[in-house]
């Protein structure tokens, strides 16, 4: 059977996303070129295989959620911070909670195997409809993108898999969702510290055990995230 070209979408998007996150030229055209060149690296032969083949061997094909997350990030990174659009909190929460439950059970801790539900029956499609309802209520347009794309990829057998879960979730999706949910929280924490400082309460913030952020935590968070805007 020939190589499934659709599976290469994952490595291309992941490489483009990493490049867009690391290299940030001032002009949008340059940022687009950086992302496109990085995506093209997936087809570059290195030793016995291409970079895309290496990524596929380690991670396997990605899910619709990964594609939507990468697409949103790329759009934001290329168009610039002025037009920033992050994934909705509802989408990220759906990914995080589903991933937490699904992958915990998928490791084989119990005889119940949620992965088997993805091969047949109504359980996973019903779950997808629930996600759509959540997206509708939360007015999150990325959720129909995720669910619709997953259903479409499943119908065209994009990843050589008969399991709906393979199109819905990828192990790194809940990790990315947790980070995207956690970083704004951390920023808020830093903001709070800065507010304390600006109110002239610096010494109290540094020494008080009741303060939510110690000096070391604050320095670490600031170094990770940069100064909050």
């Amino acid at each position, binding site marked *: 059977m020939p190589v499934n070209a659709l599976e290469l979408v994952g490595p291309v998007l992941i490489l483009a996303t990493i490049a867009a996150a690391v290299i940030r030229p001032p002009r949008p055209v340059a940022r687009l070129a950086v992302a496109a060149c990085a995506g093209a690296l997936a087809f570059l032969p290195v030793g016995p295989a291409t970079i895309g083949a290496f990524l596929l061997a380690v991670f396997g094909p990605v899910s619709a959620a990964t594609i939507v997350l990468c697409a949103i990030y790329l759009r934001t990174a290329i168009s610039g911070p002025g037009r920033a659009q992050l994934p909705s909190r509802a989408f990220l929460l759906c990914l995080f909670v589903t991933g937490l439950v699904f992958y915990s059970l998928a*490791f*084989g801790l119990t005889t119940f195997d949620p992965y088997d539900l993805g*091969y047949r029956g109504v359980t996973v499609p019903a779950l997808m*409809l629930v996600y759509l309802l959540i997206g509708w209520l939360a007015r999150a347009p990325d959720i129909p993108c995720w669910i619709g794309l997953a259903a479409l990829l499943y119908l065209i057998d994009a990843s050589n898999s008969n399991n709906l879960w393979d199109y819905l979730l990828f192990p790194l999706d809940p990790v990315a969702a947790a980070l995207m949910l956690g970083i704004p929280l951390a920023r808020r924490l830093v903001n709070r510290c800065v507010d304390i400082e600006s109110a002239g309460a610096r010494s109290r913030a540094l020494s008080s055990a009741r303060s939510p952020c110690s000096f070391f935590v604050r320095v670490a968070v600031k170094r990770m995230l940069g100064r909050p805007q």
Partner: protein
Amino acid sequence: MRHVLWLAAAVSTLLAAGASLRAPAWPVAFAPAAPPLPCIGHELFRLDTFHVARPRFAHAVSAVLLRDGRMRAVWYEGSRELAPDVRIWTATFDGEAWGTPAAIIGAAETSSAIGRYTRKLGNSLVYRGAGGDLVLIYAGAIGGWATVSLNVMRSRDEGATWSPPRHLTTSPIFNLGNNVRGPAVQTVDGLTLLPASYEFLRSHPELLLLDRDDRVIGRRRIATEFAGSQPFVAVLDDRRAKSFSRVKLEGYTIVSMTDDVGWSWTRPRQSALRNYDKPVSVARLGGKHLLMVHNGAAPGERDVDRTLMLSVSDDEGESWRPFHYLEREQGRRAHYPWLMAGPGGLYHLLFTSSDSAGSDLIHVRFSRDWIAARGGPACP
């Protein structure tokens, strides 16, 4: 525009639901088992080395009966286990002698065919699919055994030529960790149940369900306790089967039972049978009698890892009594047995004999009369 997005998502989800509802259900019965071998009128027991691989390492042999009565064996071989030069090999036995072994595929050809880097190859398993083709499942890895994933090839000419490999998606976690050893089991509706181990981080035995196109369409866990692996599924009747899985270093196998064609399994328990961290192989002898080859300890033996022994059960595997210990060469390990009814109306046992200098593949043939003469169940 937004309404179109929501509508498109809902419609495609409903279409996916329709496809999911049309997916094949879990099978309702195992395929009828071949009748057990009759006695041939005289005792026969013969042991030969059919492939000398030393100083290389040949291992994990499996075999299938061909339409013309020959037997085809498949194994992996390289400079050592999980070496990058490991290839999948095959040879045929015509009832008298083995043909010259030939390589089927290596890691580089696998990589280019499936579009994913494959650094090493591992266990292989050959069986006859419901459509009559030979099917070869083999493991490819990028690192250790935890990083294996499965590939499948088909042959329409009894193994003379093979289709390019295709990657199987069997696991939700990076599709890593599934390996094979025990023989596949056919079902009445033309599906295949493939005993497999899940070995990513924490191992357990499971069953993969494959359709006629060798696509995975179901997966059930056999047991999650005891960290078992390499299950052998012995079919008892059209719905019941017993699974014997390897566990590490404990000196027993774990046994689970199903009475719904592998959909659900009883809580695993330790077998009374001795077995030391190696897969076992089982054949039906008719009635409630089973024959098992396993790694046990002969009386007085201390090095329990190095003896293959044959045991019979008269109660569908509840209790076992050993009746023969295969003699071993000093310092060599006999392990990974493959037991099947084959050419000449004989039972054929293939296994690995290895030491630090490499390994050879051994072929033992014995008749049903030989089993009966050693205290096994009488000839039918």
